[in-house]
C-alpha cells in the first residue's frame, strides 16, 4: 500500500482525474497548496510597494493505492502534468501501513482495490 502525493499545476487535474477514473482509480483527494521550487517568484505590486511572491498556488493530489497501481498512476500524472516548464511539480511516494474504509470497516488491500467510478464496494 502506497500513497502518492503529487504537487501539480491546477490545469492538469481534469485530465488526470478522467484518466485515473477510467483506469479504475477514481478515489483520490485534492487540496490547495502554495509551493516553491525551481519556478521563479512573481511580483505583486500594491500602492507602489512591490514584493516577490515565491509561493505559487499548486494543487496537491493524494492517492492511496495498491503497490501494483503506483506506476500506472505515476505515469498518468507524468503524462498530463508535464509541460516541460519549471513549475510542473513533483510526485512523492509514501509507504502506507494500513488503510481503512470507514463505511464498511474493511482494512488492508481490499480498501484500495481499483473499482469503477461509483460502485459501492
Amino acid at each position, binding site marked *: 500500500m502506497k500513497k502518492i502525493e503529487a504537487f501539480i499545476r491546477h*490545469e492538469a487535474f481534469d485530465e488526470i482525474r478522467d484518466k485515473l477514473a477510467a483506469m479504475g482509480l477514481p478515489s483520490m483527494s485534492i487540496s*490547495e*497548496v*502554495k509551493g516553491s521550487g525551481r*519556478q*521563479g*517568484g*512573481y*511580483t*505583486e*505590486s*500594491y500602492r507602489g510597494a*512591490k*514584493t*516577490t*511572491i*515565491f*509561493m*505559487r*498556488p499548486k494543487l496537491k493530489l493524494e492517492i492511496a493505492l495498491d503497490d501494483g497501481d503506483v506506476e500506472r498512476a505515476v505515469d498518468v500524472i507524468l503524462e498530463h502534468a508535464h509541460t516541460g*516548464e*519549471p*513549475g510542473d511539480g513533483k510526485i512523492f511516494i509514501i509507504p502506507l501501513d494500513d488503510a481503512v474504509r470507514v463505511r464498511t470497516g474493511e482494512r488492508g488491500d481490499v480498501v484500495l482495490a481499483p473499482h469503477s467510478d461509483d460502485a459501492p464496494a
Partner: protein
Amino acid sequence: MRQRSLRLGAAAAAVLLFGIPALAAAADGPSPTDVAVNSMWVVIAAILVLFMQAGFAMLEIGLSRMKNSGAVAGKIVINLAITFLMFWAIGFALGFGDGNDFVGSAGWFLGNADAAGDTNSLGLFDFGNALAAYNLPVEAVFFFQAVFCAVSLAIVFGTMLDRTKFIAYIIFGVVFTGLIYPIVAHWTWGGGWLFQQGFLDFAGSSIVHLQGALAAIAGTLLLGPRIGKFREGKPQPIPGHSIPLAILGVLILWVGWMGFNPGSFLGAVGYNFADVAINTNLAAAAGVIGATIGSLVMFKTLDVSQMGNGAIAGLVAITAPCAFVDPWAAVVIGFVVGILVPALVVLVDKIKIDDPIGCIPVHGVSGILGTLAVGLFATRDRLDALNLSGSEAGIFYGGGGHQLWVQVYGVAATIAFTFTASFIVFALIKYTVGLRVSEEDEMAGLDISEHGMYGYPEQFIEVPGAFPESARTDGSSLFAGSKTATSSQ
C-alpha cells in the same frame, strides 16, 4: 438652425404639459421655482443613473472569476472617467448640439454655458425653446445625458470580461463615448432623422442598451470565448464568483432605473413621472417571474443569476415604451423578455458566443423587443398627452403597423451603424495593440497580470508577510503587449 415641424421628441422632453392646461408660465419662461424643480428632478435622476455604475460594477464583478475581479472594478472606474471627459469635450455637442440630421455641432466643452442657470443657455437647437421644454439649465441636461452614455459603455464590456486587455477598454471607450454613441443618440434625442420619422425610444432601449450590446457583440466576435468555456463543443459553466455581489448589482440597477426612465422627461413640472416609474417596476417584476419560470422549465433549477437577468431584461425592454404604454402592457413586455432570457442564454451558448453576464439576451434582444413593443402597445392617449403627433399608436391600439415599421427601421439603422463602427474599432485595436491578453495571463487572471495584485489578495491561502524584492521580478510595461506574471523566467 434647422426648421422643424411640430414633431415632438419623446425623451427629449419636448413635451407639452401633461394633462395640465395652463401653459402661461411656459410662455413667459419658467419661474425660478419651476426651473429648480425641473433641474432637481433631472439631476436626481442623473445621480441615480450615475449610481448604476456601481450596479454594473457589482453585477460584472459578481459574474466574473475571482482572479479578474479587480480588473473589472478598475475598468468601470476608468470608463466612467472617460465618458465624462469625452462627453464634455465632444460627445454632448455631437449628440445634443444643434447640427444636421445626423450629427450635432454645437456646445463643445459646454462652451458658452454661463453657469447662471438660464434655461438652455447653450441655445443648442430650437427643439426645446419652441415647446417650453428644456426648462432647466443645460448642465442638468448634460449631466443626465453623460451618465446615460456611461451606462451604454458599461454594457459593452460585460460580455468581454475575464480576457480583454485593459488598454482595449480605454481606447474603445474613448471612441464610443466621443463618437459612436453621440451620433446615434443625435438621430433621435438630438432631433435628427430618426426623430423626424416619428421613431420613439423614450429612455433608450435601443439608443443606450442595444447600442451597448452591439458593441459588445462586435468585441466578443473578435475576442473569442474564455479558455474552458467550450469543451468538445459543449458549453461549460464558468460561474461568477459571487452571486451576492451580482444580485446587489441587479438591485442597484433596478433602483437606478427609477432615474433612468422617469427622469427621461427631462423635467418634472407637468409630467407624471410616477406613472413611468410604475411601468418600469412592473416590467422588471414581470421579467423576474418570466425568467424564473423560464429557468425552471429549461434548466430544471432556480438559477439566481437568471432571475437577476430577468429583472434587467424587463427593465431594458420597458425603457423605450415606458411613457407610451399602459401598465398591463408593461407587464406583458417584461414577462415576455424575461421568459425568453434563459432560452436565449442557451442559444448564445449554442452559437458559441461566450457572454458571461447575459448581455446579448438582456441588453440586445430585450432592447430590440422593447423598442418594437412601442409599435404594438403605444396608446393614442398617451402620445397625445405628450403631443407626439408625428408618431402612431401601436397595432393593439388601432394605430396600424406604421409605428412598428418605423421602430423596425430605427432598430435596423442602429444595428447597422453601431455594429459596423464598433467592429471596425475593435478590429483596429486587435491588430494594433491587441484585444486579448495572452493565454498565460488569462490563466493567471487579469488582476495579477495587468494590475499587479489580486482583487482578493487574501484568498484562498494567505501567504503571511511579505517577501524580499527580487531581481527576477518582471517590470515590463502593460502596454507593451503581453506581460505575464505567471511564467517569469
